[in-house]
């Protein structure tokens, strides 16, 4: 997929690009609004990651322009302003999603994937996890034909790890994704550990869950077979 990264902080743009390239995206960058406007008009992008805090351009105008020119691109708006009205305005103008700085790169990836699935109407495949099967669409975890009874949060946690399989996710990346709307000043919160502990207990009651690893000192990882 083609992605244009519109970000005046070159260093940040390059990090995002390097991350997305590792995920097999084709990345282009624009460091000014003007450059972005030209690139959007000329090239075909599946996604535009748009920092609306550009020095030379109101980022939201870019969406407006694109929509007027009937450019079929999905916009994910990035802002460090994060004020409520920005969010509303962004989504009103036809941004597909919204991310506040600073965000986790894996979070950005999962937002892009979610928008892509919506856009192309692609359903999630069921995922095999050892002897377990995750029915993503139905939000169920099965062991054979028995359903493992998970809480909403436990399922969300596992799903996020599954969607980012083979990657180590830190506790904060997980926390931010699931409880992002709750502002907790406990930066060393053991929230995630407690949920992981409960989740493991439930899984181990059925079968060993070797696919669900703890990476010491870093975080957690799910390996799909």
């Amino acid at each position, binding site marked *: 997929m083609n992605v244009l990264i519109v970000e005046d*902080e070159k*260093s*940040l743009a390059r*990090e*995002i690009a*390097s*991350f997305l390239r*590792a995920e097999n995206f084709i990345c282009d960058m624009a460091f000014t609004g003007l450059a972005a406007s030209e690139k959007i008009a000329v090239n075909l992008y599946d996604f535009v990651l748009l920092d609306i*805090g550009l020095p030379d351009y109101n980022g939201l105008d870019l969406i407006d322009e694109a929509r007027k020119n009937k450019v079929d691109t999905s916009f994910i708006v990035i802002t*460090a*302003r*994060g*004020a*409520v*009205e920005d969010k509303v305005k962004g989504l009103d103008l036809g941004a597909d999603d919204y991310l506040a*700085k*600073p*965000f*986790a*790169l*894996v979070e950005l990836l999962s937002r892009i994937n979610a928008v892509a699935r919506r856009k192309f109407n692609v359903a999630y495949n069921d995922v095999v996890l050892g002897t377990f099967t995750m029915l993503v669409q139905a939000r169920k975890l099965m062991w054979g034909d028995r359903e493992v009874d998970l*809480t909403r*949060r436990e399922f969300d946690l596992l799903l996020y790890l599954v969607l980012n399989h083979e*990657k*180590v996710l*830190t506790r*904060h*990346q997980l926390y931010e994704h699931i*409880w992002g*709307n*709750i*502002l*907790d*000043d*406990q*930066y*060393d919160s*053991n*929230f995630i550990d*407690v*949920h992981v*502990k*409960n989740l493991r207990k439930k899984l181990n009651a059925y079968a060993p869950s070797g696919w669900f690893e703890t*990476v*010491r*000192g*870093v*975080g957690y990882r799910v390996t799909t077979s």
Partner: protein
Amino acid sequence: MVKLKVKLSLFNLLSKLVFTLLFVIFMPFIFERINLRQVDNDLINKREDVIQMISEIGIEPFVESDSTGAFGSFDILKEEFISLEKVNLDEDLNFIEVSLRIIDNEEITYRIINYTFKVDGQQYLLEVGKSLSSIHHTQANLYKVLLIVWIIIIAVTFLTDLQYNNHLLRPLDRITGKLTKISTPSVFDKKPVNTRTTDFVKLDESLIGLMEHIEILFRKEKDITANISHELLTPVSIMRSKLENLLLSEGIDRKAASKIEESLKTLYRLQTLVNSLLFIARIESHQYLRNETFSVGSVIEELSGEIRPIAVDKGVNLILDAGPDLEMNDANRSLIFSMFYNVVNNAVKNTSCEGTVTVRSSFDNEGRFIVDVSDTGKGMTEDQIKILFSRFKTSAESRVDGHGIGLAIAKTIADFHGIGLQVVSEKGKGSTFFFTFFKSS
């Protein structure tokens, strides 16, 4: 509490009543005095007339040389009388008195002038009298009329006063109306109130000026908040992406990965701190809408669902003692969630294994809805409570206890919604946080 216009009208009425009452009370006396004077003058004139007549025609036509030696005359209605009689007194009399006389078996009160004079060595006493009953009669009538007129005047002036005050103070009503119906200065109606009263014009103008000033300050604060957030969060964002990419790179050894994760943790701490301060600033500069209706009970239920796993893991008993519920209007659900969440979370954090955190709802005896969150934790000293909700002054001990910025956030949200937040605590026994939902909130 009484409205100004009613107060003014009542005061006017009272002062009018007092002054006119004095007048009404003294009026009859004054009237009587004036009347008596008039009567006295009349009597003196009459006496002069009689003396004049005597000197012209002599005393004989009046006083026959009969045995009594007296003369008396009165009109048919017995309003006036004249009497002349021979007397032998040692002194001359010349005075006016009020005295009873019986004429045809009728007792009548007269004002009488007594006057002695001598004709041919004989002393005569002349009495000229005028009945006072007519005077008293008119006086009584006057009194009645006066009372009726007085009542009418008072009633009419009270009503007109009320009406006029009402008219006069209408601009004030409009100004207070403008003030009471707004929740934030930005929605203050800046159209001047139509009035010719200088004081109100001044009041209105200064209010409008003040509101504009506050609005500018709010806007500035909003801008500053936005700018600071941009300035601070952008570098954090860059560093975070770099570290995350590093962590994802192939062949990184475990020790290095752990160090990177620690750096990320520190960065996350910085990010959370900035976000918390921004969150408070945004609430204070009214960047959140208050337009939702929801039940407080549903919020508490939801947040205890989030906190319960942590409490269970810690061995803390989290009890939801759901009493009455309250439907909140014009509120922001996610903010209210955040408010309760921070306080309940704080209570769980500060309660050790086997302890209990209870969330209760009730109505107090003034009918206000109360939610209280009590724990059996470490409790706090007076000094700790004083700085509990302050966002910058965290005592060393409270930092260890984990009272971070969360309680300051809770307090800011409570203030924004007009909810009272108090804490009662005893060192070693535990703390209770009280949320009081005032009727207006």
